[in-house]
């Protein structure tokens, strides 16, 4: 009874343990010492390392950017335009790297972000400076060549006039950024001498240009921008007349050296075009028109800074949607939006025509914090970020492959074990047959085991029981156990004694003798 009870207890314990384990089977990692920390310190062994966010590169990069402006303006001043081109390309590359670093380090909201925005405007301004001064020099050469042709000469003069006005406007804005940039650079110990020099060079270049040109009559192509100030999303009307222009002439409108619109002269020689404020920085900008070869004068307009608001909603399947609007309710179209997951390197996406964006992220299982950010570099807008949303990603549905592997492994091991056991049954069956031949016919059970060694005694008892049960002599102990399950224990124990070299104890022999002769006593 005791034996039975202990078996039942063991069985219930096994089932309970397996049930508890099976309950945790879907999340096998029960516990890890992740991020152990107290108020005073964290355990550095449990904090993961991070890569790709090298803040040490920020200050040297800022220094490189400022020194690049110095060499670039120097080369322009010396009219070494090839070197200036190379400098400009390098400056653009460094600016791109700086932009990425600022976004990766998530410092857009600080004065580093302001430095980045100023740097972008500087880059655009210096590119324009290079192109304009080079064009002016070309024009001066052309002017000399075409001294006789009055018509062509006036067009060249008008273009020259436009370019000079552009340069004048450019100088004011470039110098206007000097103080803020130097203040930020000084705070971080960046060398600002090349940058100061670049401002002086810029002024010198523009001064030289102005002195070189002669006073010219105003251009016949007029231009006016209405209204003269606006915000992101506002539409300006750029219009003018070309006295003596032929109707149907195409007119190109430029804002800050980039083409901003097209128009055609109507029968009155007037043209009009709509310009929508999109991706240009806040501040003063210059617009001019070109009809055929005639350049108009330059007219300024200003763009005001505006605030933005960005929203973020998380949907099914880790899809993030949201909208980016200005404070005035205008959507910000085709703008880059960064989705930052768990404070690490962000994922870039873009808003569409309605100012909404949609992105689906590939996230591992677990809880994640997602935030949408708008960097606003190059826009007349302020940066904004959405509140952080948390998403819990569940484990995806189980794929069939592991189950197939498990079933295949079970079948394979079952087959292997079957194969391994089959020859074993054949071998013991052969052995007893040989030993059988050496012995005479078996006498009926006379289990006299006195004076025999324990193992021989067990053998005699086995023969006795086998013949008592009427089993043929060819049966091995295992066969007997299979045929007569009631005595299976006896036969199995005998099998161990005979073939595995175990020795039975006195009590065991006595029990075996009783079992072997038990039937006989009852029979007798």
């Amino acid at each position: 009874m005791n034996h039975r009870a202990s078996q039942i207890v063991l069985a219930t314990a096994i089932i309970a343990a397996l049930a508890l384990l099976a309950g945790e089977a879907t999340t096998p990692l029960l516990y890890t010492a992740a991020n152990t920390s107290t108020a005073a310190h964290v355990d550095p062994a449990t904090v993961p390392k991070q890569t790709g966010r090298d803040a040490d590169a920020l200050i040297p990069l800022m220094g490189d950017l400022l020194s690049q402006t110095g060499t670039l303006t120097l080369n322009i001043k010396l009219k070494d335009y090839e070197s200036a081109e190379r400098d400009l390309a390098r400056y653009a590359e460094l600016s791109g790297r700086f932009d990425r670093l600022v976004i990766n380090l998530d410092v857009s909201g600080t004065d580093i972000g302001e430095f980045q925005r100023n740097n972008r405007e500087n880059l655009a301004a210096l590119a324009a400076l290079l192109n304009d001064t080079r064009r002016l020099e070309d024009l001066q050469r052309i002017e000399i060549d075409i001294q006789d042709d009055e018509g062509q000469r006036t067009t060249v003069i008008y273009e020259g006039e436009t370019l000079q006005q552009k340069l004048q406007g450019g100088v004011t804005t470039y110098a206007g950024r000097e103080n803020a940039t130097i203040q930020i650079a000084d705070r971080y110990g960046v060398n600002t001498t090349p940058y100061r020099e670049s401002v002086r060079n810029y002024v010198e270049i523009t001064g030289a240009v102005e002195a070189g040109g002669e006073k010219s009559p105003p251009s016949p192509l007029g231009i006016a921008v209405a209204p003269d100030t606006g915000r992101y999303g506002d539409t300006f009307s750029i219009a003018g007349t070309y006295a003596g222009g032929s109707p149907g002439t195409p007119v190109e409108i430029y804002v800050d050296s980039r083409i901003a619109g097209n128009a055609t002269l109507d029968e009155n020689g007037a043209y009009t075009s709509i310009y929508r404020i999109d991706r240009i920085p806040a501040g003063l900008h210059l617009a001019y028109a070109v009809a055929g070869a005639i350049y108009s004068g330059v007219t300024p307009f200003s763009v005001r800074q505006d605030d933005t608001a960005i929203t973020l909603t998380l949907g099914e399947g880790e899809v993030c949607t949201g909208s980016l609007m200005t404070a005035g309710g205008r959507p910000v179209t085709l703008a880059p939006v960064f989705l930052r997951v768990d404070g690490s390197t962000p994922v870039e996406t873009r808003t569409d025509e309605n100012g909404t964006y949609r992105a689906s992220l590939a996230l591992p299982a677990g809880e994640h914090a997602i935030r949408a950010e708008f960097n606003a570099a190059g826009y007349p807008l302020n940066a904004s970020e959405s509140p952080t949303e948390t998403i819990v990603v569940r484990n995806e549905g189980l794929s069939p492959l592991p189950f197939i592997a498990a079933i295949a492994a079970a079948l394979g091991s079952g087959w292997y074990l079957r194969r391994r056991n089959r020859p074993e049954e054949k071998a013991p069956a052969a052995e007893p047959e040989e030993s059988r031949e050496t012995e005479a016919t078996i006498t009926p059970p006379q289990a006299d085991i006195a004076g025999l060694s324990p193992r021989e005694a067990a053998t005699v008892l086995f023969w006795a029981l086998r013949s008592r049960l009427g089993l043929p002599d060819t049966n091995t102990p295992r066969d007997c156990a299979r045929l007569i399950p009631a005595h299976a224990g006896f036969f199995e124990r005998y099998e161990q004694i005979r073939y595995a070299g175990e020795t039975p104890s006195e009590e065991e022999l006595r029990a075996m003798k009783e079992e072997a002769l038990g039937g006989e006593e009852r029979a007798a």
Partner: protein
Amino acid sequence: MQREAWAVLLILFLAGAVVYAHATTTTEEYSRYNPGWNGTSNLPAEEIRDLADLDPSTILLILAPDRPFSPDEVGSLRAFLDAGGRLLIADEEGNANPLLADLGSSMRVRPGNLSSLNRDHVNPGLFTVSVVGNDTLFAGVETARVNRPAAVEGGEPLLETSPFTWDDADGDGRISGSEAFGTAVVCAREGNLTVLGDASLFVNAMFAENPKFIENLQPIRVDGIHSRTGTKSPIINTLVWIRTTPPAGAAIVALGVLPVAWIFGRKRDE
């Protein structure tokens, strides 16, 4: 039966060893009986319990103090400093500020949530600072890793953070809102008095991060009364008391030996 007895004895012995290990260690922060990551059991320092007559040739470390200093103790420390001994106060919470005021120093510990971009780990409080100034403590060391330090005001700076450090007031791990970048000083000295704003440099887990600094510290003594290197566990305190008072040890041994001797004596009589 023999085998089972041996097995039982083995299990009892193992259980006894586990109980001993459990009872003689603790998980309190900064405790020298804490072999875990936030204990100071690996700090090779001698503990002293009396601030009078200190030897000026060693460095005295006051680690994360949480008890006030009496005027006598302040006087002893003053004498120690005047005799040429170096005093290193490592404090992250600002509890050492009254002591600093009493010692006549202008340095103060300003606790906060210093975070920096110059780091190798994801956690913004675990970052790198650079060594400025000339001091034997930081000889041969260019950068050190600190673990949620406090800023130190005043004195001559010895450890300075990078310019991209800010005090994360809202605890969101990034610079936002009204937080601004700035350089902070984490360790400063005034004569023989050095104030280190990061007591975490002495815990077991941080030893591997700043090995040269720990090497430069030797030989060092820890003020056992005021530092938080002790423990509240009565078992450990009793064991330490027994170890340090010879009469108590002798008494315990006598308690163990006398009954056995008496039993043997009785047996011989019979």
